[in-house]
Structure formats: C-alpha cells, structure tokens
C-alpha cells in the first residue's frame, strides 16, 4: 500500500513537472496562411488576404517573406525576445537569402516590434524600417486603427523589398480570400543573380507541434515514467531469469495505484535461485507468463510506437473545412495543428534566420 502510494506520488510529481516544461516560454505557431497571424483579431479579412496573396508573389520572385503577427500579449517574454524567437522558429524568409521581415504587434501593451533576416539587414536596415514604421504604421497604431496601419506598412515593405531584389512584382489589394484567382495575380519575374542563374526559393517543412503533438509528448513521458517505475520490480523477476529491461514497461500498472491490488500478478513460487536464462524448474504459470512477455509484449510495444508515429503523420496531413471557402482545385483547409494544405498552395517558412536586432515601439 505504501509502495503504491509512493509510486503514485512520484508519477504525479513527474506529471506536474512536465506541465511547466510543456508550457515553457513559447511563441504562437503559424497557421496555414503563414504570412499573417491575427491572434488579437484586429486585422480585417481584406488586409489578411492582401498580405497573404502578395507574399505568395514576393516569395516566388525572390524568396522574401513579410509576416505580420498580432497577439494580445507576449506573456512573460519581452517583445524583442518574443519576436526573435518567433522569427527563427517560423523560419521567415528563404534559407538561401535570409530575407524575411517580421512585424509583431502586441495589442494589449500597445507595442510593436520589427525584425529582419540576417541576409537583408544591410539593405533594409533597422533604421530604414524605423522610418517606414514611423510614417506608415505609427499614426494609425497610436489611435488604435491597427488594420489600416498594417495595410499601409505592408504595401511599403512590399515595394521596398521588391526594389531591393530588382523584381517586378505587382502589388494588388484584395477584398477577401474568396477573390483569389487560381494563379498568382502578379507577373513576378523570378530574380536572377549576377551570374544569370535563376533563384528558386525553397520552402522548408513546416514545424508544427499543435495539440496532438503535446498529447503525444505527454504519452511518451508517461511511457518513460512507467518504464522507470516498473524497474523497481526487477528483483523478483530477475530471480526468474526474465529480461528486466524489456519488461519494464509492463511491470508497473498505474491503475493499481488507486485500487486494491488484485490477485492476478502473484509472484512465482520460490523454488530456489534459478540459473538465469535457462528456464530451470519454472512452473507452468510462470512459463506462460514468460511467453506472453517475450512474445506478445514486444509486439505490443511496437504497435504503440507505430500508432504514435502514424498519428503524428496524420496530424500533418489531416484537414477539416475552414470557415473560409476554398479556392482553386486543391482547396484551402486548416490542418489540425497546422501543416500543408491538401493539394493546393503550400505556405510555410523558407527557413530564414534573424540575428535578433530590430526595433519597435517598446517601453
């Protein structure tokens, strides 16, 4: 009874410790739209569509990505640290050119932060960004018209970045996501390097954790703890010559922590120390138990692992109909925990990084 209580206590403590680990300083995850995340719900659909569709054009032309993120709060993180982590977690901009730009609006504190990739920081300096933000975002931001400020700033950033790379990308405003044509609206000429070769930006696999990912982490932790606690029963099973390490997972039955011990798991009759691995003079019941552990046990473990990995894969590809109507043949759907859209336009970070400078309206 006391042993069960101690095991239960250890398990509860371990789970409690896992909670802060799971909830440790983290930033929001990108949605399938990637280029805009309106967590504070201050941007109109027209602005979001304009940002998303024009970014498609820009990325195709030169790999640049201009991402707008609004959040009610950055939590305990400083806005500059939050922006830095978000930029590198999302991989904004192409990996080859590191030419992403992030505009983060923290509505609750009425602050914002702008940050550019390491590959563009010499041509679009923080000073340049400061001047643009001060002219096109700040006046509207100060009076609470975040949507207007974001729209104006995005247009200017689009023009500036396109100019930096010398691409002919036509900016277009959209009234909503339903207006999208099947092909990118702008005729963006792919940028070419001085050697004449065409630059083709690559997208990286989107990093998604989401709700299912968190559940899977908890399951893995639970299995690990279960395995470790089960090893406490090694002594009695070692006498019987059973491979303890492989059996660890099955030796600890957590449901018994809170119920009276049933009589099923009775220890084998003590018939003296049996040589390890030889079987010796084991009884029929212990031999059958050994067979179950040695044969079916390992396959049960394999099945658990297999179903976890398939669940992970299905979280990346599964979809449910979003509130917005689909476009083109593939349709646009939001994955559970994010991921690529089913058959349509795929948006994700190009893998760009930032060195963490930037500036903003920050007390």
């Amino acid at each position, binding site marked *: 009874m006391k042993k069960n209580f101690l095991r239960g206590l250890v398990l509860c403590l371990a789970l409690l410790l896992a909670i802060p680990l799971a909830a440790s300083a983290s930033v929001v995850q990108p949605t399938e739209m990637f280029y805009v995340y309106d967590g504070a719900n201050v941007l109109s659909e027209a602005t979001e569509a304009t940002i998303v569709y024009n970014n498609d054009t820009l990325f195709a032309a030169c790999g640049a990505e201009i991402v707008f993120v609004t959040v009610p709060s950055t939590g305990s993180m400083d806005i*500059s640290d939050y922006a*830095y982590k978000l930029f590198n977690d999302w991989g904004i901009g192409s990996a080859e050119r590191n030419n992403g730009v992030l505009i983060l609006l923290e509505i609750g504190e009425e602050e914002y932060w702008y940050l550019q990739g*390491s590959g563009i920081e010499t041509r679009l*300096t*923080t*000073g*340049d*960004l*400061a*001047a643009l933000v*001060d*002219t096109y975002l700040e006046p509207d931001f100060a009076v609470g018209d975040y949507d207007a400020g974001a729209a104006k700033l995005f247009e200017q950033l689009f023009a500036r970045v396109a100019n930096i790379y010398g691409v002919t990308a036509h900016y277009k405003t959209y009234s909503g996501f339903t207006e999208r044509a099947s092909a990118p609206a702008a005729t963006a000429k792919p940028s070419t390097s001085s050697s004449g070769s065409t630059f083709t930006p690559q997208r990286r696999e989107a990093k998604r954790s989401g709700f299912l990912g968190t559940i899977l982490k908890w399951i893995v932790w639970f299995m690990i703890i279960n395995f470790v606690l089960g090893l406490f029963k090694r002594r009695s099973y070692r006498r019987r010559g059973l491979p303890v390490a492989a059996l660890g997972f099955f030796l600890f039955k957590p449901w018994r922590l809170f119920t009276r011990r049933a009589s099923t798991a009775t220890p084998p009759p003590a018939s003296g120390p049996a040589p390890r691995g030889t079987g010796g003079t084991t009884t029929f019941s212990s031999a059958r138990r050994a067979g179950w552990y040695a044969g079916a046990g390992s396959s049960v473990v394999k099945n658990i692992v297999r179903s976890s990995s398939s669940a992970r894969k299905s979280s990346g590809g599964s979809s449910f109909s979003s509130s917005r109507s689909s476009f083109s043949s593939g349709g646009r759907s939001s994955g559970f925990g994010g991921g690529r859209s089913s058959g349509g336009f795929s948006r994700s970070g190009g893998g760009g990084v930032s*060195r*963490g*400078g*930037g*500036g903003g309206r920050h007390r």
Partner: protein
Amino acid sequence: MFKKQKFSENRSLAWTVFAVVVALTVVFSGGGALRAQRKAAADVFYYGVNNDGLCISADMTERVAAARNLADVAGRYESVSADLASAVDTAADAAEADAKSGELSSLATQNAALGRAVEQLYTELENASLSEADTTFALSQYKEFVSRGLTIGRDGYNARAEAFNETISSFPASVVAKVSGVGSLGLFR
C-alpha cells in the same frame, strides 16, 4: 669525507631538471592550447560564427557610426547639451581605439558606456525641437544603434567567450593562464 657526485648521478639536479621541464611543458603546451581557444573565440568576434562577416566587429562599426550621427544631429541644436554629444563622441573614440588594438575586454566596457551616453543624448533629442528631417533621421539612427546592440548581445561570440572564461577560471587552467599571460575575453551582453 664528502664524495663528489657525478653529474649524471646527482639526484637533486635530476629533480630540478625534471621540474623545469614539466613547468616549461605546462606553460608552452598548456598555454598554447588556451591561446588557441581564445583565438577561436576572438575569430568569431571578427569574422562571424559562419565566417560570413556577420560579426560583432561589423556591428560595432555600424553602432559607432549611428552614435556619431546622433552626436552630429545634436551638435546642430543649441538647446541640446553639448556635453552629452561630447560624451558620445568620447565613448565612440574609445570604442574605436579598443577595436583597433584588439582589446576586447576593454571594448565590451566601452560599448556599455557608449550605450549609456547615447541613451542620455537621445532622451534630450526627443525633447528638443528638431526639424522634421532631423527627427526622422535621429529616430532611424537611434533604432539602428539599439538594434545593433541587441544583435551584438545575441551573437555567438558571447557564448564562446563565456565558455573560455569559465575554462581559465577553473584550476589548473587558471594557473596556466596566469603563467602564460592568457587573459579573459570581454562579454558583450
């Protein structure tokens, strides 16, 4: 009667030679290893983590330039204290001198001093009646200055310098470092 020992049979002399050889080995090879580790960290300061020029050295150059631009703007207005602008110029000169001589520890100190001087100057500039062009220019230079400071603080050099400083502060590396004259590296955060 005291018997004169042969040179090759002199135990005391042998121990003395042994001690000298050990000391020289420790100083030269141990000190050499520490010097190599220090140089590796310093190279990141000058050339970047990926050897791509994105480094603190380049950031410091831009940061000092932005500071001097702010001092220039301040110099055009009598309402802004000349002492503040002068303090920025002095700190910028000291930082440039340290950068040139490779005194990274001193440069880290000067960088912090420059940051304080610029903060004081910009606070006064914000309250002064500047022209629209100068207001925009001062804002952009200040943001550039702060941005470079953040980038410098996050640079990979700092982690390497910190690891090196920890190494030479622990025994017996601390003894070798002292004997070999290998000093610690400045941290820019």
